């Protein structure tokens, strides 16, 4: 019925169904109060592709449900048109772009230093990693050696940010499964870490801390005292938060066997990070393509083989413990020295291209920078793991119940800022 929508006439507002043409108009069981149009998630234009035509045609007993962009559990402003058969999801059509800022274009018109603050809000949960990838790409273009103290500070603050992101994931995942308490327990960790990073960087959320050739500010007393205070009880506190869920029968029953990704499918979808490692592939950029000071540090790459939502959740909790190990080592070995390389104020890298990737809490976070010799990047391509992982939703959701689609999406942990860029 949807394929018969009339083409959009120029000058008139689009209507899904012109007055008097809706299928329910002749239905005596539907009470028509007046003939205002109402919202159907069907686009107001004729289908542009075969896939669109197929999706927007309803079979018997199916209906569309418009999830988002203002739905309580779409993790930002994602809109998913879900084709439902009862409670079971038949097919989905994600509609992206509600958070599109045009970052890659903004970056082309900004100074190299200014680009750092432009890429910051991409993944607002873990913005240090958004800075890290472009900054290292620029450093490769410039052939600049970053001081060791700066590298240590980068790793230290990055791992803190990773813990903050993962603990927030714990809360959101539980909330999407209906648990009210874990979100507020996990916000304690996040809040303490964010406060401590605010003492270091001056911002709670969009840190704008990394600089080309180093970091913005040295470790200060406020940060160190907060960090020491937190580290003394971090392991215990995180353990108590995880304990709320790990032994909960309802939670385990719902999360296990849900949204299973095998390693082949994960590789085909280009998944990285915890979502890939949960399928048994021990790929971690920190070990696979070592950068910064990670080769000197001791930590494990936890993997799991189940590939379901529970495995992804447990893996992230395991990574928190590894991050605590890394922070301990960083504090132990923190060298003295400068925190910035000697660089001119105005940067003009030689013409060329550079790719760099870092391991963010969501996976491989990459930046591909092209320089044309001017003081602005010619192009900066940002590879965002959230976008890659959101693609898996299309393969995982159909066949599941409506309630599970939320859990699957939460377990993949996408951030819409990074998806829409």
């Amino acid at each position: 019925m949807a394929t018969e929508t009339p083409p959009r006439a120029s000058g008139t507002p689009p209507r899904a169904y012109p007055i008097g043409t809706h299928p329910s108009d002749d239905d005596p069981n539907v009470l028509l109060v007046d003939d205002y149009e109402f919202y159907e998630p069907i686009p107001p234009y004729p289908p542009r592709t075969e896939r669109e035509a197929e999706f927007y045609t309803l079979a018997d007993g199916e209906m569309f449900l418009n999830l988002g962009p203002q739905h309580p559990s779409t993790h930002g402003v994602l809109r998913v048109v879900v084709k439902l058969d009862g409670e079971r999801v038949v097919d989905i059509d994600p509609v992206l772009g509600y958070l599109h800022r045009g970052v890659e274009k903004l970056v082309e018109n900004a100074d190299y230093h200014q680009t750092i603050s432009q890429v910051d809000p991409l993944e607002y949960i873990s913005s240090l990693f958004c800075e890290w990838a472009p900054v290292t790409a620029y450093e490769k273009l410039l052939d600049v050696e970053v001081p060791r103290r700066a590298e240590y500070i980068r790793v230290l603050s990055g791992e803190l940010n990773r813990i903050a992101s993962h603990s927030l994931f714990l809360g959101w995942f539980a909330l999407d499964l209906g648990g009210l308490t874990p979100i507020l327990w996990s916000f304690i960790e996040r809040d303490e870490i964010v406060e401590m990073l605010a003492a270091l960087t001056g911002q709670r959320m969009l840190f704008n801390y990394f600089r080309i050739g180093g970091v913005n500010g040295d470790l200060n007393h406020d940060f160190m005292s907060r960090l020491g205070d937190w580290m003394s009880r971090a392991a215990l506190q995180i353990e108590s938060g995880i304990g709320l869920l790990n032994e909960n029968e309802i939670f385990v029953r719902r999360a296990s066997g849900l949204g299973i990704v095998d390693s082949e499918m994960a590789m085909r979808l280009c998944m990285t990070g915890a979502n890939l490692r949960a399928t048994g592939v021990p790929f971690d950029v920190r070990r696979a393509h070592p950068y910064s000071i990670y080769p000197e540090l001791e930590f494990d790459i936890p993997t799991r083989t189940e590939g379901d939502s529970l495995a992804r959740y447990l893996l992230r909790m395991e990574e928190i413990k590894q991050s605590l190990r890394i922070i301990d080592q960083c504090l132990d070995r923190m060298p003295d020295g400068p925190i910035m390389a000697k660089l001119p104020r105005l940067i003009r890298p030689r013409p060329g291209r550079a790719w760099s990737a870092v391991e963010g809490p969501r996976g491989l976070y990459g930046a591909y920078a092209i320089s044309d010799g001017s003081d602005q990047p010619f192009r900066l391509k940002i590879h965002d793991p959230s976008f890659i992982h959101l693609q898996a939703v299309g393969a995982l959701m159909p066949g599941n119940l409506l309630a599970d689609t939320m859990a699957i999406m939460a377990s993949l942990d996408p951030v819409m800022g990074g998806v829409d860029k």
Partner: protein
Amino acid sequence: MTAINRTWDQLTVPGKALAIVIPLLAVLTLGLVLTIVLFGQQILDILIFNLPIVRFVFAVTILMLLFVPIAFLIIYMEMKIIALMNLRIGPDRVGPWGTLLSTVHGLKVLMKEDFTPTRADAVVFTWAPVVVFSTAVLSALVLPFAPGLIGQDFNIGLLYFFAIGGMTVVGLLMGGWSSFNKYSLLGGLRAAAQIISYEIPLTLSVVGLVILAGTMSLNSIVEQQGISGWATDWYAVRQPLGFLIFAIAATAEANRTPFDLTEADSEIVAGFATEYSGMRFGFFFFAEYINVFIISAITVVLFLGGWNAPFPVPHIEWMVNPGELGIGLLLLVMLAPVIGTLLLAAPVYLFRSQTRWWVALIIGFVLFNVVVGGLLSLWAYINFDWVAGLFWFVGKTFTLVFVFVWMRGTLPRVRIDQLMGFAWKWLLPASLLNLFVTAAAVLVIDAMKRGGS
């Protein structure tokens, strides 16, 4: 006329309101008094002749009035307890410790726009909250709160309770269907599926109890649980499996976590209540919390002894007849408050040097009131059965309400297929097993008794 007009114009808005209301009240009062004087006997005769109807109307009115503060209390409990479990502070702005917040919520809901969406079935949409609320109130009619405090003592009280309680689903389905919203529709259908499925184990789990009790009157069931005075008489002890099944199924009936799929906010926004606003939403909200109270109350009545104390309370004869005191009564009323206040204020004044005398007097007066209130309650508890019964009944019921709130703070939500599978694959066979074991045991014991005698 101009003088009246001028006077009228000089009045403020409250003044005008009073100028209208006071004469109106005076006329009405006069009319009422005249009616009573002239036709008092006839009216009384009619009322006495129709005593069951009068009793019914009176009970429903009292219950409806009573349920507003009960719902407020439970809403406040839920906000505060879940806040403490979430390591939050919770409501703390309106009233002492935020206790008036739910009242303010109620007023806010009254003032909001009462919105009907386009293409909604307006009639059904309007009546759905009424159905949900009135079924909640009506099903409370057979609850025995205390000895003698019962709306209507049916001999089929239990059947009536389940029949009326099951009608809630009609209201939820009406709201979900008529809203013209797919989330509402999903919520309404989930409610229908869930409540109808859980109705079966809920009802079957108490059949064993009915076999043991031999009656369906809730009043008699409670009386049977208080024969020896100990908690071992309660049906929770004699029917543990039935109690367990009933508790689980009752949680699902009240749409509470972990079975709150009908209003799962992370899945279907607010379920059947998505399109509701204003007082219509308020009725749904009230009904939900009243249902929590009623479900707790029926669990207490059926399995936890109702108004009976868990242990025999020693009976003390402590009836003061005021008439015997004579002039002593006058002295008591005049002197006791003064002396008590002074006595209780003295230590505060003497041992805390910063306290001023009038502050100490206020503290003493408040303490005296507390002491007298406590003594009066004790006196009432000892002398009146219904006060003692109400004490235990309300205490047990609110303990169960706390358990409901606790579960909401702790547990995630189950999935719809897990929910239905649990009802049909586990609860239903378990309740049938409970029924057969109970029936067989009753038969065997009867036969043994007959054989023995």
